């Protein structure tokens, strides 16, 4: 008997379009599945069709589209109630077991069919032309099938059982839709489990499970090895299958063939009317009917409220709200974590966390409830009554639209509430309501409101609810994919770009205004969609879309026509205004245009890379910053010196390539002519009237301006800000070919037939041995600068502050460095609080005072003392062990969190607001990272400012690894060894993560290029090991000599050569202090690639 029911179910579904729509949807999505799931994550050596990648992608797609499973399974029994044939079916002599089993197996078969879309889609995806064959293993269909059976099948069974049972028991369609969320919530909850093993067992989509299984595997094994179906993975699957079976048993027990649910029936019977014959004497009053704008307004309010409450009252909505709140409370445990230390739960962290985790919930609300609302009257079979009233289609659709947006608002307030609860529980009481409100109402709500327009439009046009839901999801994905391919101009990328990050220092800064304008543009577009949707919407019984489109012209009432015209005009006006800003005032570069530029730049200018050019030996500039308008001018001169052995006849100047920057004037003493052949690259050749003889100097005057013109598409410059400007001298004119403009991506280079790019030169490259950095145009400078800025800001540059004054309502600062310094300086300006202190040292029995200053945003005083302590401790340790500190001041300046780093310049350390300043450091459990990062940056005053490394392999070991070593020694001295180990533990993690991402052979420390997991993480671990064996004292001694000999300005060896130090030089110093018995260690730690010892 069950077989007949099974057969019937299959036959029924075979004829339904949904079945194929589901399949096709999964199929199409899965073609780009791997690319979509792994977008933005660096896969390193992992191949795109490695078993683990397939497993994770299948798990993720299955999880993402669990909602489809609930649509297929949930309606299986529910359908009988929906079509009111339950009375017919339940009175036939079938028994419950056969009925349920037949239905379940039937729809499960259909479910499997639909989800094989993943299998076939992914297989086809492997052959898509955009994959690089190097990123793929040999094709093996069996792997896909195996993974499908191992990963997807059990999850589907679990989901199928659960959804089938809930559908049968609740008999409520909305519950069926929303239960996919519940499974997703379970998944999110498992992320909060700290025990890896249990997390692996409980993850319903086995994402963490597969990670757990392969945790100890090498990258190569991971990339090729199949995942064994034993151990944790097996338990995980058994667990969820068991839950599925339990759900089925429960459902079987609870389900009964009663057509009416008993409890509710009783309630309904109360409806008895007592008075039956008082009908006749009622007079129906005459009322005024109005059809003008006022009445439209009233109707709009009525609709809005009506549809709002209709969702608001649903328990499934509250289910979503509660899930959202719970997830936030569990998930936001770790906020703004840097180096394993959490930040204070500042509101903007909470808001970012809330936005990220709640997106799924909002989208579910959007996708399903927009379908529900558009179909509401038809679902209740009330549509004909509605349609025969003189209401306006547009007002009705608009009412539904606003109602749904109000629903989002309810969820938003619930989320804000849970955010505040979270802050309170963590003892943080600075609730910044305006940050909460702006985060949600300026970012999330407009995003949702725009996509809701799309959803309403689609639902109005296609006249098929499921298909509409699918199309909305397809639109979401298509838009993301479009953005990934670089089609992201704000004028045609739906919704425009996201609002830039919020910074305590700079608020939303200059992102805000263009964001609003672009949102207004899209919102008008959305309005047009709603209007079109309302014109074409089904009214009456005609459903054919062409007939509806034809009929729509009669529906355009006069007021609506006026509104449409106005919206259209405004849309075009704002669109033109945006176009004027992004494409006329500013240049818009598509990805391909930028690539072409880079290619031709390299092809035409590479010839000049190593031609003899003079070096900058002095810089004297007057900088005027205008923070309110985000402009600046830089005027002054460089002194250039010919260090070469031959005459220099022409000087090549590269202007920084950015639309906003102009080089207004440039001139050379003694006269010159300009060759502007390469003007399109902002690269000018100045032919001097009189050649520059070896050893001669020449003054180069210039004026550069940065002018903000309107706004740009996408994210604009984040260095020049209203509060927190931070840029360095690489923005100023540089001399000669600039390597950073070359195209980097290996595959694209191949496409354009460019030679393989050598990222970092070999240690015997004679050209680069003479450079301390890419395209170095200086071997040290004298520096002087006057900076003017607005009255409320402090401007900073390296050097002693000679004078400070106010003029024309502006603050001026005159800095001059008394010593030669490297040609690397930053200009910083913001509103600051200042913490001052001093550090006294007695070098050669002369007491010397160094001014210590920390410039910080006024609310960020949490860790200032820690930083100050670190400044003193570091200066003491480094000057005692490595040699004297060279400047008379040391400053730390906070800058906005658009970048997350700290960087050392001579005597000045710009330090991002995101790291250190807002860390909530608990000395019991955390490493004092504010202390550590400060120490690291101060170490650069030695390794980087005093000794520079040649621009060849191993350069960053000298600069970064040594700074890491120096910093950890200070940490060890000031805290305990235990903390050191705790820190090294995090570095070990970083190393492992980095190694997993690596797609080339790991280099040794001596030959490291730009792999930060080696020069930071492995470097510090190996240095620690090294000093443990040969003694801290010995290492410091070696470094002291190294510094002395290779100091850029007065090193004994450096003065007699034009090259810079390499790791080869450094290791010689190490060898000198290492006893014979341990010499092998230097080879092992620095020259070979060996596993970590720690």
């Amino acid at each position, binding site marked *: 008997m069950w077989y007949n029911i099974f057969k019937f179910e299959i036959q029924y579904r075979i004829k339904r379009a949904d079945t194929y729509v589901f399949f096709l949807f999964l199929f199409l999505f899965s073609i780009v599945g791997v690319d979509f799931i792994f977008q933005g994550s660096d896969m390193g050596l992992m191949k795109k069709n490695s078993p683990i990648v397939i497993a994770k992608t299948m798990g993720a797609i299955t999880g993402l589209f669990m909602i489809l499973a609930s649509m297929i399974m949930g309606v299986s029994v529910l359908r009988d109630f929906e079509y009111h044939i339950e009375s017919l079916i339940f009175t036939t002599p079938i028994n419950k077991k056969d009925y349920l089993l037949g239905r379940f197996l039937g729809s499960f078969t259909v479910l499997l069919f639909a989800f094989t879309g993943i299998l076939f889609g992914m297989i086809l995806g492997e052959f898509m032309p955009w994959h690089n064959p190097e990123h793929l293993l040999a094709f093996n269909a069996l792997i896909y099938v195996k993974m499908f059976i191992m990963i997807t099948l059990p999850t589907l069974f679990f989901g199928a059982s659960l959804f089938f049972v809930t559908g049968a028991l609740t008999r409520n369609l909305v519950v069926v839709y929303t239960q996919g969320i519940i499974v997703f919530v379970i998944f999110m909850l498992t992320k909060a489990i700290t025990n890896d093993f249990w997390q692996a067992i409980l993850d319903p989509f086995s994402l963490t499970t597969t990670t757990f299984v392969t945790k100890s595997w090498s990258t190569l094994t991971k990339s090729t090895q199949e995942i064994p179906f034993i151990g944790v993975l097996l338990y995980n699957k058994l667990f969820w299958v068991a839950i599925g079976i339990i759900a089925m048993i429960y459902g079987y027990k609870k389900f009964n063939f009663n057509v009416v649910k008993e409890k509710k029936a009783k309630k309904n019977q109360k409806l008895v009317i007592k008075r039956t014959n008082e009908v006749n004497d009622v007079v*129906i009053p005459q009322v005024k009917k109005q059809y003008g704008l006022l009445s439209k307004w009233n109707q709009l309010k009525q609709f809005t409220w009506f549809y709002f409450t*209709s969702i608001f009252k649903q328990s499934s909505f509250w289910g979503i709200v509660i899930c959202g709140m719970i997830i936030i409370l569990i998930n936001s445990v770790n906020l703004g974590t840097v180096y394993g230390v959490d930040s204070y739960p500042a509101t903007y962290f909470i808001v970012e966390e809330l936005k990220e985790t709640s997106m799924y919930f909002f989208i579910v609300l959007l996708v399903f409830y927009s379908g529900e609302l558009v179909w509401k009257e038809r679902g209740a079979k009330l549509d004909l009554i509605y349609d025969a009233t003189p209401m306006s289609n547009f007002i009705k659709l608009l009412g539904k639209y606003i109602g749904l947006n109000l629903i989002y608002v309810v969820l938003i307030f619930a989320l804000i509430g849970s955010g505040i609860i979270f802050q309170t529980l963590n003892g943080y009481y600075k609730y910044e309501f305006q940050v909460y409100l702006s985060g949600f109402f300026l970012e999330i709500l407009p995003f949702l409101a725009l996509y809701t327009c799309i959803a309403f439009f689609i639902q109005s046009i296609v006249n098929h609810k499921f298909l509409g839901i699918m199309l909305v999801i397809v639109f979401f994905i298509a838009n993301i994919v479009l953005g990934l391919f670089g089609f992201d101009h704000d004028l045609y990328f739906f919704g425009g770009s996201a609002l830039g990050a919020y910074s305590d220092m700079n608020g939303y800064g200059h992102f805000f205004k263009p964001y609003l304008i672009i949102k207004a543009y899209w919102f008008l577009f959305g309005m047009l969609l709603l209007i079109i949707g309302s014109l074409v919407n089904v009214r009456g019984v005609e459903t054919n879309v062409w007939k509806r489109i034809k009929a729509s012209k009669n529906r355009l009432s006069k007021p609506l026509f006026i509104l449409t015209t106005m919206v259209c005009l405004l849309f075009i006006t704002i669109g033109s205004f945006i176009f004027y800003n992004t494409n006329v005032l500013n240049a818009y570069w598509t990805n391909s245009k930028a690539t072409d530029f880079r290619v031709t730049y390299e092809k035409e200018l590479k010839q000049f890379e190593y031609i003899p050019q003079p070096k900058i030996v002095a810089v004297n500039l007057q900088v005027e910053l205008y923070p309110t308008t985000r402009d600046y001018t830089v005027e002054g001169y460089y002194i250039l010196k010919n260090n070469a052995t031959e005459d220099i006849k022409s000087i090549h100047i590269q202007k920084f390539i950015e639309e906003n920057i102009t080089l207004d004037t440039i001139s050379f003493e003694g006269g010159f002519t300009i060759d502007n052949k390469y003007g399109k690259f902002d690269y000018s050749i100045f032919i001097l009237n009189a050649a520059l003889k070896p050893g001669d100097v020449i003054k180069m005057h210039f004026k550069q301006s940065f002018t903000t013109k309107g706004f740009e598409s996408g994210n604009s410059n984040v260095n020049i800000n209203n509060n927190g400007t931070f840029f360095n001298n690489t923005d100023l004119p540089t001399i000669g070919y600039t390597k950073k403009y070359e195209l980097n991506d290996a595959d694209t280079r191949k496409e354009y037939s460019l030679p393989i790019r050598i990222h970092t030169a070999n240690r015997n490259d004679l050209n680069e041995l003479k450079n301390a950095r890419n395209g170095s145009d200086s071997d040290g400078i004298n520096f002087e600068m006057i900076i003017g800025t607005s009255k409320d800001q402090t401007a900073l540059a390296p050097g002693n502050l000679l004078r400070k004054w106010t003029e024309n309502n502006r603050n001026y600062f005159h800095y001059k460095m008394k010593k030669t310094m490297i040609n690397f300086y930053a200009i910083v300006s913001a509103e600051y609080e200042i913490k001052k202190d001093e550090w006294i040292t007695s070098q050669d029995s002369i007491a010397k005072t160094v001014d210590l200053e920390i410039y910080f945003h006024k609310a960020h005083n949490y860790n200032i003392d820690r930083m100050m302590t670190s400044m003193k401790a570091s200066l003491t340790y480094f000057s005692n062990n490595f040699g004297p500190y060279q400047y008379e001041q040391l400053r730390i300046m906070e800058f906005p969190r658009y970048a997350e780093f700290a960087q050392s310049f001579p005597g000045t350390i710009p330090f991002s607001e995101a790291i250190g300043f807002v860390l909530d450091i608990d000395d019991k459990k955390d490493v004092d990272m504010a202390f550590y990062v400060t120490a690291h940056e101060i170490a650069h005053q030695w390794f980087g400012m005093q000794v520079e490394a040649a621009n060849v392999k191993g350069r960053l070991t000298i600069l970064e690894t040594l700074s890491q070593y120096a910093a950890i020694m200070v940490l060890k001295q000031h805290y305990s060894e235990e903390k050191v180990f705790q820190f090294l533990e995090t570095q070990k993690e970083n190393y492992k993560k980095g190694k997993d991402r690596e797609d080339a052979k790991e280099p040794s420390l001596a030959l490291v290029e730009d792999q930060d997991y080696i020069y930071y993480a492995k470097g510090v671990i190996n240095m620690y090991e090294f000093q443990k064996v040969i003694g801290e004292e010995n290492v410091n001694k070696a470094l002291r000599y190294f510094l002395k000999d290779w100091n850029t300005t007065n090193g004994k060896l450096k003065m007699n050569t034009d090259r810079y130090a390499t790791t080869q030089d450094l290791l010689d110093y190490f060898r000198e202090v290492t006893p014979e018995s341990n010499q092998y260690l230097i080879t092992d730690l620095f020259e070979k690639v060996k596993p970590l010892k720690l």
Partner: protein
Amino acid sequence: MKLIIDNLSKTYSNGVKALQNISLEIPTGMFGLLGPNGAGKSTLMRTIATLQEADSGYISLGNIDVLKQKNELRQVLGYLPQQFGLYPKISAEVLLNHFAVLKGITHKGERKNLVDSLLHKTNLYDVKKQNLKGYSGGMKQRFGIAQALLNNPKLLIVDEPTAGLDPLERNRFYNVLSELGEQTVIILSTHIVDDVKELCTNMAIINQGQVCLKGNPLQILENLKGRVYKKTIEKLELKAYKQDYKVISEKLFLGKPTIHILSDANPGDGFSLINAELEDVYFSEIFNNTNAKSI
């Protein structure tokens, strides 16, 4: 005020000719539209109610061109569709108020009075706070007429309103309708002959998309006077009788078929003359029509 339907035609995309050159003139008062299932009644009603496009033809109410000035018509239209549902979790009062807003009754106080009096009128006042989910078929139908009356319609269209109602409920429903007076054009579609007989001053019979007969029920009955005969026969004889006579209806009476035939002269043969009922008119028209078709 008259509703004029002129040459209205509609063919569905599957080829079904739902309306064929329908022309009717409907004055104020109750108008009965009689026809078997699938005759095209609902299509006609929906077309008048602006819910469906016609292929050709013309409809006007007073000076409103119904097919073009849809919104103008909707302002004076009350419509009760053949089948409709109600939001289960909303009370009658709230939903009726909601519809009142849709129909342009802006003033809050007036609206409340109107809703209350209509609830009284349809005898739903006692249960106005209850969710509509628990309403019986009759209550639901009365709610339907209440919403149709909200805007004091000049044209009221009720499509098979009494299907499935028990006799008591049916009477209650018609009591409400009959009170609407002579100011309104009321079109009542039904396949129940008695409904028309009891209520309507004018009527039309349509079948297979065509108007077979129109006029005043009394006049129409006059036409059949002395032409309808009745006889109770055995089941086996039925076929033979159908060949020999114009059998317009057959009914079971105490288990035996009773047939009505149409004949201008007395057929004898045990037939007895009866007073023609409206039902006979209905059946005879359908008989004629279908026969004409099949020839």
